[in-house]
């Protein structure tokens, strides 16, 4: 999505400063992703598959406790885990890549502030500072407990629709760092094996997974039915979004994009009148 390159071609933007064009591009990104949110979010089968894999992993790994990831359980209260998880869950309500990035960063901030409080309270005991060694395992734990639906789709959405130079260069380091951490945490969860966890001698990974599976499946069948119904409904109401048009085509086709942009300018002028 090269708004930064497309915009100067329009007469009204010809004399604009680069910073103004950047800002306008940010707004355009926001508007277009909002308008086409359902299409952009739901068109990718690869992302859907991984969403399901993640969901399965959440269920199977329901048994994981803080100690399995070598986090001292005494220092973390479950309440703050829930708060951080709720922040992350907001990601599903945001429709622009930037807002989604903010949700991830907020979740990370809560994790860090909780860790920091703990460090202050332990300061007199000479506890060392915290960094990624502490925050990443806790982030993984938050992901496991929050069970955010469609997390990978959201991640993929940011990856694809946040204008790449902006995501990789101009965005604040916080966005880049937390985005990378999310990627790492999800990958970790998807590839988890018994040797990645700190298990006690009497704990058997396979047994634990079996137990969690049984427990969650008993309670979650009803939820699955509901989400399936929702999907059906959405497809009924938006026939134009299913089928032929692929997102890759949409993005790599500059003419279509220009059409989009001119549509938006038309919309804007109408609203002003």
């Amino acid at each position, binding site marked *: 999505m090269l708004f930064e390159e497309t915009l100067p071609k329009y007469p009204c933007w010809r004399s604009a400063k680069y910073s103004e064009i950047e800002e306008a591009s940010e707004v355009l990104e926001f508007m277009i992703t909002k308008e086409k949110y359902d299409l952009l979010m739901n068109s990718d089968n690869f992302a859907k598959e991984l969403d399901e894999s993640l969901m399965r992993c959440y269920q199977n790994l329901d048994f994981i406790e803080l100690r399995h990831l070598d986090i001292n359980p005494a220092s973390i209260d479950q309440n703050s885990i829930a708060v951080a998880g709720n922040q992350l869950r907001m990601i599903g309500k945001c429709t622009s890549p930037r807002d989604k990035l903010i949700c991830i960063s907020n979740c990370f901030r809560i994790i*860090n502030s909780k860790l920091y409080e703990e460090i202050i309270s332990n300061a007199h005991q000479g506890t*060392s500072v915290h960094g990624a060694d502490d925050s990443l395992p806790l982030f993984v734990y938050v992901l496991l407990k929050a069970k955010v639906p469609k997390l990978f789709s959201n991640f993929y959405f940011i990856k694809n629709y946040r204008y790449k130079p902006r995501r990789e260069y101009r965005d604040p*380091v916080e966005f880049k760092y937390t985005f990378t951490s999310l990627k*790492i945490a999800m990958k970790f*969860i998807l590839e988890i094996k018994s040797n990645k966890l700190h298990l006690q001698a009497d704990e058997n990974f396979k047994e634990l997974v079996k137990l969690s599976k049984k427990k969650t499946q008993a309670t979650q069948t009803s939820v699955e039915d509901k989400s399936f119904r929702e999907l059906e409904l959405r497809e009924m109401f938006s026939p134009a979004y299913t089928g032929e048009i692929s997102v890759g085509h949409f993005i790599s086709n500059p003419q279509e994009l220009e059409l989009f942009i001119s549509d938006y300018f038309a919309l804007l002028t109408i609203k002003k009148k």
Partner: protein
Amino acid sequence: MDSVKEFKIVTLGEGRVGKTSLTLKFARNEFHDNEISTVQANFIQKDVQLDGGIQVRLNIWDTAGQERFRALAPNYYRQANGAVIAYDITDAGSFNKVKAWVKELQSQADKDISIVIAGNKCDRESERQISAQDAIDYANSINAAHFNSSAKSGKGVNELYTEIARRVYAVHQKNAKANPQLSNSRGGRRVRVTNDEPQKPKNKNCC
């Protein structure tokens, strides 16, 4: 417009060798005590003054060093300009990890990546297990710099980060001369054409 060049530096090393403390010590010199509550050490941004009045901005990323996250490290050092690899001079095992990191960086990271090795906890000289000369020789053999540092006393910390800043800046200048169109005017990173394939886990099920 003369913008400050930005570089991405990753801090690598085994868990608990004091990576985070190093980064934080470096960042903290700039902060007053009452502002410390805003400091978190996952990523920090600090400007470094080089010879000739050149200012560069380092974005220093902390990484999780535990063995269980080891395989995911390439995500951290992707597009990094420099790496600080820390080890604990009182722990021989952590120095062997440095060698593993260097090998990995040489084969998988950006080929221009600058490396600085930090022998941390040098305030505990009496417990030293790694000979300083061995470490320096090793660093020279891979064209890296070696520093003895202590996050506790602050010794060597600034020198270490100034050195890595100097190195990444030199690489940037060299590349800018060789390929003026490839250097990004807004940052020190080079624009690379990468095969941006979606990450595909080998094993879709976790068990």
